[in-house]
């Protein structure tokens, strides 16, 4: 029988964005307050974190042109969130970075020197050091390179892999060149942590891609692949997904 896991959603602060930045060509000029979400997965004697939030509110507010008013509550840094759910950084077996934008790898450094392996698509790693001009402001290499963690902690992968029994990583490019999503087998069915392959639920529900883009064609294809492989979705920035939510995630097929 395939191993089943428990999931907890972690909030990594919130920001204000233009809705058109989340949904390409839709509701442009409307402000939207969104969370930045990460996921903690436990089961099969493993502790896994997907994405690690931001490293500094001040840096975000000063440097990222498409967001404003970044705020982190006490339990919304990765360290604070782990404390809240009773995990120690040294217990975490894997960190899966869906991609390497600043708001998805800002807490990688707290695992430096521990057993933790960072699982990243090779294409994303390469893209992060040499992004297209429209994405330069979202990549800060010191958040994920040898200054953040030891090089031997980094596990670069190429394509779909079964990371552990019941945990499958699938490439979902479009938002970035090497974005990946995480399929997690749970009691209720397969949950996909899609991160920014579907910023909010509306993306996958109405088939609208996000506005921060590497490739349009693969963006649509990635959402199609998620529909084929999962029953539930956790997005990267969906306001309706609750902090510490553990079940009843949004259904993809309705």
């Amino acid at each position, binding site marked *: *029988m*395939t191993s089943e896991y428990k999931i907890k959603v972690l909030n990594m602060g919130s920001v204000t964005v233009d809705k058109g930045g989340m949904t390409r060509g839709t509701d442009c000029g409307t402000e939207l307050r969104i969370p930045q979400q990460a996921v903690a997965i436990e089961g099969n004697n493993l502790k896994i974190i997907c994405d690690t939030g931001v490293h500094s509110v001040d840096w975000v507010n000063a440097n990222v042109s498409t967001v404003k008013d970044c705020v982190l509550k006490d339990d919304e840094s990765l360290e604070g969130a782990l404390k809240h759910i009773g995990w120690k950084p040294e217990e975490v077996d894997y960190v899966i970075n869906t991609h390497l934008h600043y708001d998805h790898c800002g807490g990688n450094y707290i695992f430096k020197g521990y057993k933790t392996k960072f699982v990243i698509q090779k294409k994303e790693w390469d893209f992060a050091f040499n992004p297209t001009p429209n994405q330069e402001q979202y990549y800060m290499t010191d958040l994920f390179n040898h200054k953040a963690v030891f090089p031997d902690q980094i596990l670069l992968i190429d394509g*779909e892999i*079964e990371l552990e029994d*019941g*945990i*499958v990583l699938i490439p979902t490019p479009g938002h970035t060149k090497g974005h990946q999503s995480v*399929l*997690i*087998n749970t009691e209720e*069915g*397969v949950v996909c942590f899609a991160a920014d392959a579907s910023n909010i639920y509306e993306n996958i529900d109405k088939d609208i891609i996000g506005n921060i883009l590497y490739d349009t064609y693969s963006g649509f294809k990635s959402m199609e692949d998620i529909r*084929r*492989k*999962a*029953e539930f979705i956790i997005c990267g920035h969906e306001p309706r997904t609750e902090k510490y939510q553990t079940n009843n995630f949004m259904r993809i*097929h309705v």
Partner: protein
Amino acid sequence: MVEYQIKMLKMGTLYGEKSSLTMGIDFGVPIPIPMWSAAIEGNGHKIVVDTGIKSLEWTKENLGDQYEVEQESDETMEAALEHIGWKPEEVDIVINTHLHYDHCGSNYLFKNAKFYLQSSEWDYAFQPVKNQECFYYEELFGWQAVRYTSWKMLSGEYQILPGLRVIPLGGHSVGGQGVFVNTKEGIVCLAMDAVGLYENLENNILPNIMTNVEDGFKAFDIIRNNSDFVIPGHDTCINKYQSSNFPVVNK
């Protein structure tokens, strides 16, 4: 070498026209087309190769008048397993040779199994060539039936267990595979639709449902080079619950 026991499970019969199984010959000749699955036991495992149709009703509803379908009382997957003393939840491995509706229809029954498939067949199943669209139904193999995390997606030849491996057999579909099993009598190839009828292999005549002819002949060669016996997917030369004396592969 570990040896396995094979038992053939009959999943009903379609009534069709012979040239659909033999390219270019016997047009218009009516024949019964039994649908075969196999139960394989050994090495502490219970394995099912192909899972037949979902049900008689489903098949009638979705195939319309393309074929007439019949199923005897012990020819549903559940009843056939019960007949040999198995419960679906005891099956730990399911191998789909390909994803046509008559080979994965009862996948949904096996809640505790890992499912082995060529990843090229998965991709193809969502975008088949036009004349095969009527054979693929996402509801039979997609999230509705099998959790994606229970699939083992393969890229090429793979040893699932000692004495039991799969080898890609293309032609009939893009990502087809055959199962090569070590038994007391020798290596048996569950070729299924790469060799719909024994006469395909024996007379070097391709099945007529075919994506690529070269791949189809290549599959025949792979079977000849790697097995002593062959199990065709739709031949009346196989008997219900047959467990030995399978058709011989002539080199």
